[in-house]
């Protein structure tokens, strides 16, 4: 502990507090999942002609104010629109159909438009495919680190590598939990980028230490 400066101590305390806060938020209100991974409902409207997503977006903004809505084009001819929202009531569906009919001159019947339920995607299903690659890469990296930096004490190097990698990921996830940043499509890329930057940080530090030992 003698090498830890006051600045570092403060940093460690802040990080621990962030992680604790993240754990508490996750335990109490859970993570905030993107609509893509949440339980939702969708309707599909066959317009029979190409359309602008922005026009549909204007309609959904009126019907679902301040709500996240996903709009997607369906099938090869892109003449069907798929609207996904957290919940679509019959009234909202009727309004959408009415406004779409007005905008595109279609004669869609609201009652014929079925509201489909989309189940949520489990967090473990999202991360499952990434576990094996991360474990394999980390194990190889740890072996490499232990060999390359054996002069810095392999055990310490291994523990530091694992510890810092886990710590940075926990901090990232805690920040996402506290700031209610939705767990979505950019979460995994962010995790990968943070992992990569952590590795660069760790090796830079070890290289510096190694140079110091060589100089001595």
């Amino acid at each position, binding site marked *: 502990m003698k090498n830890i400066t006051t600045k570092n101590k403060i940093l460690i305390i802040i990080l621990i507090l962030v992680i604790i806060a993240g754990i508490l938020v996750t335990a109490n209100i859970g993570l905030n999942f993107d609509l893509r991974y949440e339980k939702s409902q969708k309707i599909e409207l066959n317009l029979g002609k190409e359309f602008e*997503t*922005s026009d549909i977006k204007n309609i959904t903004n009126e019907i679902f104010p301040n709500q996240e809505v*996903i*709009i*997607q*084009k*369906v*099938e*090869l001819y*892109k003449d069907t629109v*798929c609207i996904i929202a957290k919940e679509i009531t019959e009234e909202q569906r009727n309004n959408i159909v009415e406004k779409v009919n007005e905008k595109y001159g279609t004669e869609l019947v609201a009652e014929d438009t079925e509201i*489909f*339920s*989309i*189940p*949520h*995607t489990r967090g473990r*299903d999202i991360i499952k*495919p*990434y576990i*094996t*690659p991360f474990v*394999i*890469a980390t194990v*190889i*990296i740890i072996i*490499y*680190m232990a060999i*390359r930096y054996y002069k810095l004490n392999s055990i310490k190097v291994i523990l530091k590598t694992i510890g810092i990698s886990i710590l940075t990921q926990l901090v990232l996830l805690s920040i996402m939990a506290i700031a209610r940043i939705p767990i979505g*499509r*950019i979460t*995994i*890329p*962010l995790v*990968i*980028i943070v*992992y*990569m930057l952590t*590795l*660069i940080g*760790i*090796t*830079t530090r070890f*290289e510096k230490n190694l140079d110091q030992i060589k100089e001595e």
Partner: protein
Amino acid sequence: MKKIKIITFILTVVLVTMVAFFGVYIHTQNRMEDKVKGYSYAMDLEGARVIRLKLDSGNRTVIKDAEGKEVQDADNLTDEELTEKGYTKEEQPYNSEDVLNKQNYETSKSIIEKRLKELNVDNYIVKLDETNGDIIVELTDNDDTDFIISSLTPIGKFEIIDSQTQEVLMDNNDIENVNVMYGAGNSTGTTNATSIYLSIEFTKDRTKKLEEISTNYATKEDSDDTTTDQNTESENTTTDETSTENEEEKSKEITMKIDDEEIMTTSFDEPLRTGLLQLTVGQASSDEKALKENVQRASGMAIVLDCGNMPLKYSLEGNEYIFSDITDEQMQIIQYVVLAIIAVALIVLIIRFKTLGILGVFSYIGLASLFLLVIRYANVVLSIEGLFGIGLILILNYILINNLLSKINKQKEEDISEISKDINKKFFIKIIPICITVITFSFINWIPISSFGMVMFWGILLMAIYNFIVTRNILSIKTQR
């Protein structure tokens, strides 16, 4: 000479940048066509095939005898014939109330995931509605997608039964694994024909049982309509071809069923002692298309049998291609934001290092443009992770160029080649763990991960080669006295 070299370099960078960002348009059939290869996108950026599997609410007709035992092969009997024989017809739901529970929904979902994995599907999402058992599968759309979808709904129930007594002799629980094998064809008389076999390997403790069955159901010598091939494989024999006179002497036969559908009725030429049962799929052929179809059919069957049987029967309710909600406009906005950040960062380089900075900037732009061309021609599939990979490469290259220029600026009198060598060496040593991760990710059969791996792989490789050859040389020219 120095000026010519620098101008040539700058013009080359401009040319590569134009090609990478704007393309090369050539007049083709009354229109201008971009001859530069486009990007390949993964399902999160392009779109996905979305299928909805619903629990089958239909019924199946079961014919039972007076004792309440299920009677097979009675489908063709008329109602009068059924009454005459004392048989009764019953409607049974495919999914009875007692099997509709969360545990079975979960099992079905895991079997579907297992099948997708065995089918080497490189990107998919499976969602389960725990309230009603509905399953939604999103997967990459390509030539194999329809075949993959067709492999998701079968229950995968496998049975070997006694043709006469209907006694179940073996089922899914006895299977160790199922493979597809190739062998020399013999049934068509065509030379060079290839046969496709479904090789079912039974568990160790059921090997004895298989041997027993193959002995008990052996082909009698005068049973003329049963054929076997060199692989001790049993061929189909149809019972209706058998003449009535030798009915008594005819071999006992087994019937093989998949999902209650009769695959074949056969007897065995010799006892099977290895625990392996090989079945021909389709006819031996030398035609590539026919072989491909047979292989696909056999693979489908193998995977369905290998992954265990589904406790519930699902039917395909919806099957549509849905485009990504990330629109071209949104992609353009992202591009502009990234370009703006890069522009600011490059201006900083120019301000800090003046003329040297300008050359560094051109070198950076040259690499970025070349990198975007390389990932297109290397057939890298871009996912969101891949886009982040591009971003990381641009950051890493900026750090490298910045380190290089800083060092040259500080040690003006030293040899640029030596400085460059030293900076590159230090930099690449620092990113060895990243290289390990990148190589590992590149081999993973999961598009988002492999996309990141492949993008980074080409990026790092290009950075090493380009900076060693181009950047070092151009900076050397500039500092030459």
